[in-house]
C-alpha cells in the first residue's frame, strides 16, 4: 500500500495544479473589468471559478483513489445513460441558449450532456477496443462498429447544434481506434471521406459557412462574425514579445465578448506576450507527453485505451482552442483546458486527471514489483 501511493505521476499532478493555478489567475485577470461593468462585482467569475476548480481538485483526488478497472464494469451503463441524456435535449428539458439546445435543465442543476458523453464514450470505447483486439484490423469487426458508435454520437450532438463537440468526440474515439490498431489504409480513406463530410456540413448551414469564411479573412467583417477573431488578433498583437503585464490587457475590456471563456488565450497572449503564450502551449505539450507515457505504461490495455482517450480529449481541445484564437481555423466554441472559466468541462477534466493519476499509480506499482522480482 505504501508503494502504491508513492507511485502516482507527480509530474502530471504538478503540471495540472500549475495549469489550474494559471487558470484561476487568468480568469480573474480577463473577467474583472467585464464583471464589474456588467454585474458591478469584479470577483464574480473568480468566485464561481474557484468553486469549480475547488470541486475539480477534490474530484481529482477522489477519482485518483478509485481503481479505474471499476469503470469497465459500469461503462456500458454510462454509455446508455449518455444517449439518454443526449436524447433529453430533444424533450422540453432542453434549454435553449443562443439558438442551440446544449444544456439540460433539471431544477437547480444544469449540465451539458455532451461533456458527460465525452467521458462516457471514452470509458466505454476503451473496453470495447480491448475486447476486439484480435480482430481490430478487419473492417467489419474493427473500424465499422467503431464508426457506428462515433456516428451515433456525432449525429446527436451535431443536431443540437454543436459541431465543435461533435467533431471533438469523433476525434477522441478515432484516436483511440488508431492506437488500438485499426488498419491505417482504412483510416486514411475514412479521414478523406470525413473531410468531405465536414466540408459539406459547413456549407449546409449559412451561418456556419459565414463563420468559415470569416476565418479566411477576418477583417472583411469587422463588426459581424469577424469581431471576436479580430479582437483576439489585436490582443495577441498588442502583447508582443513580453506582454503588457497581468491585468493590463485592453482588449478584454469589453472588446472581446466573455473574455474569460473560449477566448481566454487572447488575454494570456496580450498580458504575458509571446513568451507567456508559447510557454503555456509547451506546458500543455509536456502534460500530453506525461499522459502518453502513462498510456504506454498502463498495466493493461483497458487502462491504456482509457488514458489514450483522455489524452486525445486534452490534445484536441488545446489544439482547436488555440487554432481558433489565432484565427488558424473557423470559430468554434471550445474551452481551453484548465484555463477557461470553469463549468462542467473543468470538472470533467479534473475527474479525467484523477483517473490518469490512478492509472499511473497502478502502472508504477507493477513496475516496482517487476524490479523487485
Amino acid at each position, binding site marked *: 500500500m505504501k508503494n502504491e501511493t508513492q507511485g502516482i505521476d507527480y509530474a502530471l499532478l504538478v503540471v495540472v495544479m500549475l495549469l489550474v493555478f494559471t487558470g484561476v489567475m487568468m480568469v480573474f485577470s480577463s473577467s474583472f473589468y467585464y464583471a464589474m*461593468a456588467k454585474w458591478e462585482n469584479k470577483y464574480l467569475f473568480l468566485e464561481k471559478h474557484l468553486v469549480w476548480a475547488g470541486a475539480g481538485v477534490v474530484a481529482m483526488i477522489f477519482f485518483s483513489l478509485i481503481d479505474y478497472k471499476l469503470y469497465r464494469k459500469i461503462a456500458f451503463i454510462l454509455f446508455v445513460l449518455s444517449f439518454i441524456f443526449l436524447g433529453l435535449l430533444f424533450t422540453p428539458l432542453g434549454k435553449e441558449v443562443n439558438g442551440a439546445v446544449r444544456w439540460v435543465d433539471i431544477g437547480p442543476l444544469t449540465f451539458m450532456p455532451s461533456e458527460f458523453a465525452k467521458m462516457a464514450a471514452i470509458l466505454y470505447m476503451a473496453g470495447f477496443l480491448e475486447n476486439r483486439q484480435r480482430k481490430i484490423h478487419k473492417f467489419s469487426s474493427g473500424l465499422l462498429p467503431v464508426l457506428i458508435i462515433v456516428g451515433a454520437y456525432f449525429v446527436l450532438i451535431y443536431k443540437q447544434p454543436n459541431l465543435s463537440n461533435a467533431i471533438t468526440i469523433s476525434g477522441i474515439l478515432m484516436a483511440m481506434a488508431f492506437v488500438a490498431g485499426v488498419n491505417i489504409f482504412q483510416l486514411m480513406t475514412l479521414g478523406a471521406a470525413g473531410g468531405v463530410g465536414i466540408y459539406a456540413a459547413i456549407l449546409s448551414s449559412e451561418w456556419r459557412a459565414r463563420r468559415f469564411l470569416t476565418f479566411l479573412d477576418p477583417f472583411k467583417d469587422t463588426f459581424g462574425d469577424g469581431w471576436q477573431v479580430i479582437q483576439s488578433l*489585436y490582443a*495577441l*498583437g498588442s502583447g508582443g514579445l513580453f506582454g503588457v503585464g497581468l491585468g493590463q490587457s485592453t482588449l478584454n475590456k469589453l472588446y472581446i465578448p466573455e473574455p474569460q471563456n473560449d477566448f481566454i488565450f487572447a488575454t494570456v497572449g496580450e498580458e504575458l506576450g509571446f513568451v507567456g503564450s508559447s510557454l503555456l502551449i509547451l506546458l500543455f505539450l509536456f502534460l500530453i507527453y506525461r499522459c502518453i507515457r502513462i498510456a504506454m505504461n498502463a498495466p493493461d*490495455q483497458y487502462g491504456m485505451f482509457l488514458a*489514450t482517450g483522455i489524452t486525445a480529449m486534452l490534445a484536441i481541445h488545446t489544439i482547436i482552442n488555440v487554432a481558433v484564437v489565432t484565427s488558424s481555423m473557423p470559430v468554434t466554441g471550445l474551452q481551453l483546458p484548465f484555463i477557461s472559466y470553469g463549468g462542467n468541462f473543468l470538472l470533467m477534466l479534473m475527474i479525467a486527471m484523477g483517473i490518469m493519476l490512478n492509472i499511473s499509480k497502478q502502472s508504477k506499482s507493477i513496475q516496482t514489483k517487476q524490479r523487485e522480482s
Partner: protein
Amino acid sequence: MTKPNKMHRLRLWAAYLIVSLILFGLIGRLAYIQVINNEFYLSKALSHQIRDIPLPALRGDILDRNGMKLAFSMSTFTVWARPADVDDPEAHGEALSTILDESAAGISARISNPESTLVRVAKGLTKSKADLVRNKGLKGVWVTESSKRVYPYGNFAAHIIGHSTEDGDGLSGIEQMLDEALSGLDGKIVSHTDAAGRTLPVGDEKVYEPEDGYNVVLTLDEVIQHFTEKAVDGGLKDFGAKRIMAVVMDPMTGEVLAMTTKPDYDPNTPRELTSFFTAEEIAAMDNDAMFQAWNQIWRNPIVSDTYEPGSTFKLLTAAAGLEEDKVSVNSTFNDKGYIIVNGVRINCLRSNNPHGLQTLTQGLENSCNPVFIEIGQRLGTETFFNYVEDFGFTEKTGILLPAEGNALVQAEERIGPVELATMSFGHGVSTTPIQVATAVSAIVNGGNLMQPLIVKSLSDDEGNVVESFEPKVRRQVISKETSDEMRKMMESVVLKGSGKKAYIPGIGVGGKTGTTEKLVDGRYSKDLAYASFVGFAPVDDPKVVVLVIVDEPKDINFGSVVAAPIAHNILLDTLRYMKVEPEILDAAKMVTVPDLTGKTFKQAQAILDASELLLNTVPIDLDDPEAIVQMQYPAAGEKIRQHSIVILSFDTTH
C-alpha cells in the same frame, strides 16, 4: 489482463508526434502574430482603443527687432449648450444674461431650441467671464478654450506679418513662411478606452506636453516702419496713386528695416473686401473671384511682383562701366538728343533740347539715355549680362517671405543691339522691388551683394535664441573704389539732378529716379506709369537704402516729382531716429524730452505742445484721446532739438 504491446506504443508515439507538430505549428503562428507582424495588429488595435485629447501648442509671437509685439495669440472662450441636457432654460437664461450681456429671454429661447443639438451661446469671451459662466455650474452648458490671433496694430506691416486662419495656419506673410516654427508641436493626452469609450484607469494615460511655437524676431524696426507707412500714406493722398510700395534696407547687412505697400489690409479681418471694392462688386463675385480678390490684397508685391525699374537701372550700367574701366566719372559724352542703334532711333527724354556735352556724372544727373546706351555698347552684351547676373537679377533673393517672384530678363542669346541699348537704361527688363533694393545696397555698401533679411532670429518662449540669421554676403560685385565713385555720383543726382526733392540739408543723400510707362496689352501706355526713386544716406557711411515705387500716380508721372519726396520724408525721420545729425547745426533751441509713459494721448499732446515738440503715434490713426502711452522715443531726459518728433506708442487694448 493483456498488456499494451509494441504496436500500441508505436502508434502512441506517432499520435504524440502529430500533436507536437500541430502545437509547434501553432507556436509558429503565435510568433508571427505576436512578434513578427505585431505592429500591424497593434496599430490597428490602437486606432480603436486610443483617444487623443489635443493640447494645442501656443503659436509664437511676431516681434520687431526691438521686441515690440506685432502679432500674438491669446486665449478666448466659447460658451456652448446642448438643448437636450438643459433642464431649466429660463433659469439658465437668467443666470447667463448679465455675464453675456444678452436678454434672458433671448438666451433661454436659443438654448431650449429643440431643433438644434448644439448651440453656441457666446464666443470671444475673456477668461474672467468664462470663469463666471463655469462657476454657475449650469447643466448642459459648458465652456471651451481656443486661441485667437491678434494683430494689435491692425494694418501695420500687414504684408510682412501676414495673417493666419482661426485654426492657426499661416496664410500669408511671415505667418505663412514660418508657419512651422510659429506653430510649434501640439501635445496630446493619450488614454486607452474600453469598447464603450470609457477611459481606462491606472497608468494608461500618457501626456505629451505641447511645444509652443517659436517667436519670430523680424529685422523690421517698428519705428522706421511707422515712418515709412506714414510717408507712403501721405504720398497716396498727395499723388492719388493706385498704390505705393516702399522698402527701407540697411545696405551693410541687407536687413529690411521697413517694407510697406499701400493700400493694405487689416490681418485681424483679412477677408474684409469693403475697402478695396464697392458693395456691388463684392456682391457680383463668385467663389473664384472672391479668392482672387483676397489673394490680390494679401499679396506682397515688393517680393512677389515685378516692375520695370527704368532709369534706376542706369546705376547698374554705370557701375559696370566704371568697374570694367570702360568709362570714368569724368568721361565725356555728347548727347544729340537721340542715338541711332542698328538703324533704330532711340530718343533721350529731352530730345527737343539735347543735353549736349556732359560728363558721366552729369549724364546720371540728367538721366540721359544715350550716355548709358553708349556704356552698354562699350561693355558688350556678354559683360553687361554678367553684371545683370552678379547683381542678382536672374535669381530669387531668397528672402524669407512667401511667393517670391522672378525677374523677367530676356535670354542673353536673344539680345540684339537694340535690346542691349534699351536694357542699358532700364527698359525691357522687369525686376522685383526687393531685387532692386538689394542691388542698390551692393552699389553703395562697398560692392557686396547681401542676402536680404526679414527675420533676425527665432527664439523660444524663454527668450533663448534658437536660430539667428546673420548678414550674409552673397558675392562681391564691384570694387570698393567703384562703390565710392557711385555714391558720389548719386549724391550729385540729389544735389543737382533729378533727385533734388530728396535733399536733406546737412546730410549727404544719394539717389536715382526712375520713370517707366507701364506695359498695357503689350504696349507702353502714355498715362499709366511707375514712378520710382531709390536713395541712400548718409553718402559717406550709408545707413539706409530707401526704394519708393509709386504705381499709377495721377497727372504727374516723374519719379523726381512723385517718389523722391516720399523717400525724402522717410529718410528725414529715419535718420533723425538713427541719430544721424546734420553737419550744419542751426541755432535751434535744445529741449529735454518729458516723461510721457502712463499719460493719456490728450495729456501727452498738451505736454509736447508746451515743450514745442511734435508727435507721432503708433498706431498711426489713433483717435482715442484716452489711450495710454506705453513707450516713447526718444526716452525721457534726452536732449533734442525743438520741433523734433517724439514717437509715442499706445496701448489700444485697455
